[in-house]
């Protein structure tokens, strides 16, 4: 009954993805924890955090697709929201270290002791509580996106100009977070984490749980985005990419619609970042690098912009390729990535998902044509038809 409801609500491919993600969330950790290493189905322990990282990237691409694919807002700074979510989680993990740090200060993280700070800055308060950190994971990227979007969309900044200021936003944050006196660990960022909610981050079971959490969150955020894009508001969002003026002149507040999508998207990116940090074990200002945000655009374009499914596949595929290529042929990776982006832009405007639907349509059309031929062919033999003989 649940499957029927899911199908009618989200459609076949989207339901299949949700079910697949939930299945992965259970099966992969099981295959890692329960199966002995010599079993061919065993998932090795080093693979799980890597795959979990890909799922976080997929969630980031999904977030970008909500604004780029559906509202036509090309954000070149979505990595900033991802990194802010990551820092919020990193701050919690830092405070969990407690007296086990190198300097053994019960309150201050190591880098503060090293910088001779006497007390915890006010913005680190509360991060010893997991719930508070989770709240900040949503609120900080959301608030930044809201304020940024409020000014940008109200002033009707669109297109290339908006893309440039989103890029400037992430670059400004990169520079700010590099500074030691910002209080976020400067160049080195936050690392050397010990445990999350009392579970050791080095333990296989914790890693398996984090992987499962990533897969489940991806399924949930995907379902949320899918529900929104299928709603009337989703149609208004898509209408923005066709004729923004018409949307305004039939009485919708264009800036409110964009602000909603942008803020929600930033929050999803924040969740992705928060799940990413405990799995890779570090967060530093490098995550704010403009190139990171541009890579997200490439994943989304490769998978298929404006499809929600596509960006998830794009992120998994490109990052899988990256892991393989940077190990096997490190010098060609960037060229391969560039070539891929050019090829997709030129030949697959709707990405891989677009290619699949195109092939499906062609197949269906051929099938329909064959059926029609079958129905009309028998009564009149083609050879006797004067028109055909001509």
């Amino acid at each position, binding site marked *: 009954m649940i499957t029927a409801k899911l199908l009618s609500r989200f459609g076949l491919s989207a339901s299949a993805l949700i079910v697949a993600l939930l299945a992965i969330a259970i099966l992969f950790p099981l295959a890692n924890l329960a199966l002995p290493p010599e079993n061919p189905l065993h998932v090795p322990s080093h693979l799980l955090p890597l795959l979990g990282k890909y799922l976080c990237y997929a969630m980031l691409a999904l977030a970008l697709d909500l604004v780029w694919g559906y509202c036509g807002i090309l954000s070149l700074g979505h990595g900033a929201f991802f990194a802010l979510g990551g820092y919020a989680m990193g701050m919690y993990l830092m405070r969990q270290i407690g007296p086990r740090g190198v300097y053994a200060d019960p309150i201050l993280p190591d880098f503060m002791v090293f910088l001779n700070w006497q007390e915890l800055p006010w913005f680190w308060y509360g991060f010893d509580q997991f719930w508070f950190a989770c709240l900040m994971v949503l609120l900080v990227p959301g608030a930044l996106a809201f304020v940024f979007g409020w000014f940008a969309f109200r002033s009707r900044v669109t297109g290339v100009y908006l893309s440039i200021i989103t890029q400037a936003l992430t670059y400004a944050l990169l520079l700010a977070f590099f500074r030691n006196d910002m209080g976020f660990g400067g160049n080195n960022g936050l690392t050397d984490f010990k445990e999350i909610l009392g579970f050791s981050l080095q333990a296989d079971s914790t890693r398996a749980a984090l992987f499962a959490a990533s897969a489940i969150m991806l399924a949930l955020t995907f379902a949320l985005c899918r529900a*929104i894009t299928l*709603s*009337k*508001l989703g*149609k*208004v969002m*898509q*209408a923005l*990419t*066709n*004729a923004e*003026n*018409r*949307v*305004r*002149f*039939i*009485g*919708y*507040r*264009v800036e*409110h*619609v964009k602000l*909603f999508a942008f803020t929600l998207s930033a929050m999803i990116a924040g969740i992705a970042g928060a799940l990413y940090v405990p799995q890779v074990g570090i967060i530093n200002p490098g995550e704010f690098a403009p190139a990171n945000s541009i890579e997200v655009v490439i994943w989304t374009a490769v998978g298929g912009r404006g499809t929600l499914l596509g960006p998830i596949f794009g992120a998994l595929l490109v990052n899988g390729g990256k892991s393989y290529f940077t190990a096997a042929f490190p010098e060609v990776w960037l060229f391969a990535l560039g070539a891929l982006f050019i090829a997709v832009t030129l030949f697959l405007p709707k990405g891989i998902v677009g290619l699949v639907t195109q092939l499906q349509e062609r197949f269906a059309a051929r099938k329909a044509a064959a059926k029609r031929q079958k129905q009309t062919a028998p009564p009149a033999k083609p050879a006797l038809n004067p028109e055909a003989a001509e």
Partner: protein
Amino acid sequence: MSTMQENQPLLYLDGVSVSFDGFKAINNLSLVVDHGEMRAIIGPNGAGKTTMMDIITGKTRPDTGEVFFEGEKDLTQLDETQIANLGIGRKFQKPTVFEGHSVYDNLVLALKGDRGVFATLFSRFSAKDRERIEEILATIRLQSRAQTLAADLSHGQKQWLEIGMLLAQDPKLLLVDEPVAGMTDAETEETAKLLRRIAKTRSVVVVEHDMGFIRDLGVKVTCLAEGSVLAEGSLDHVSADERVILSYLGR
């Protein structure tokens, strides 16, 4: 509706001027449109017809002058969205529809209702909405194309769809900019019928160059030139005016 509003004209422009880089696009323009009236606006290129619509719909702010809707609503203080929600619908010169959506969805989006973000997110499509859309589809003669993507419509059909979207908004005043540009004669005739039917229940302002079409409409005509009103009255009266012949018709 209060009696005060009944006595007030629906749309009232007085002494409106606007200039762009020193060029006076609108110069001391005054215009009154009554409830239930259809008005045709003619005039040479650059007479300020589209700029006038921009001012009424809040796209352009006038430098001086008054623009009032239903007596007390000052349109110069409101933006496009607020004005649209007051009940002024606008059709652009170039047909502007949502090409990525079906004809049906175009109308669903335009349908009168709460335009708030969350109201839109959770909105449900009622049987009454469906009825209203069927009605509009019949009016604009696009029933058989309801599920067609708007991008795949012919030029004339896009114009009609846009008019249909305006109807779905249920405005009190419709501003229609060159509705028959690029239409075949048969389509032009259909459009005149359509606008006459619409004008039975609401006020309509039509900007057009096609004199045959204006004659078909058979309504009061205002001729603009160089940003102000040159002549006003029946088409025969206006086209007999010497200044109109000199600046517009005679050329």
